[in-house]
């Protein structure tokens, strides 16, 4: 599975307006609605479910990245969105540091294997120092989307 297979590039955000975790989640989900990946009427429930999930345990796994994710019955196709914050967001991350890159993942409720594969794809890239650095430096939607397309070719 490639990163470009799961990311909806129409939903990429180069600089989040939100200054906190819940606001960032809302902004990304609303962007996915705008991009046509999820229905407007499901947005509120999805936002609530992701925030609830974050409260159970932060998906800010350290190194400035967070991967909020849920399995939701309104999702019929697995989809991810990439967002960047230049100011940094408090995600209650495990290393207590601010989060600059958020990859939000929505999975259908009934496919555990596909969900794990998507998480593997996301973390395979996010744990690479070069990829994280490039993403943090990417100032525009075009630059971020280019990185997503070329993710497999970026050296460590």
């Amino acid at each position, binding site marked *: 599975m490639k990163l470009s297979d799961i990311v909806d590039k129409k939903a990429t955000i180069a600089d989040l307006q939100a200054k906190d975790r819940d606001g960032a989640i809302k902004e990304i989900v609303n962007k996915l609605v705008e991009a046509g990946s999820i229905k407007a009427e499901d947005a509120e429930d999805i936002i609530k479910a992701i925030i609830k999930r974050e409260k*159970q*345990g932060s*998906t800010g*796994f*350290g*190194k400035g990245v967070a*991967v909020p*994710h849920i399995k939701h019955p309104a999702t019929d196709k697995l989809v991810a969105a990439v967002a960047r914050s230049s100011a940094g967001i408090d995600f209650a991350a*495990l290393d207590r540091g601010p989060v600059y890159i958020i990859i939000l993942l929505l999975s259908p409720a009934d496919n*555990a*294997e596909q*969900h*794990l*594969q998507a*998480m*593997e794809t996301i*973390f*395979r890239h*996010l*744990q690479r120092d070069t990829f994280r650095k490039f993403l943090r430096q990417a100032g525009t939607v075009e630059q971020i989307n280019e990185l997503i397309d070329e993710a497999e070719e970026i050296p460590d």
Partner: protein
Amino acid sequence: MQFESNSLAETKMNVDESNNNLAVKDVRIENKMGLHARPAMQLAELANKFDSDITIRKDNQSVNAKSIMEVLLLAATQGTNLQIEAKGSDAKDAVEALSKLIEKDKFGEE
């Protein structure tokens, strides 16, 4: 003194010259959702309580059990066989605790 024959039989132990214990155990992912973020976090948290270096293997892949991101890279679904290897003063306890979390407690899931 009670002799723990049960756990001794299950966990292979070797003592090398540097007095670093090595413990190895094969486990299987039993919970339906597999090793997703929450279990990976539980696993890494528990692994961090031990001084030993702990490695988890799946086929040819091996990751540091103390790193959530690395554990997530295993993408281990239900039924996946893993090998836990610990090296250090508390190697045996580490392997026992981790295998209990994975197989017996199933990360508190179904």
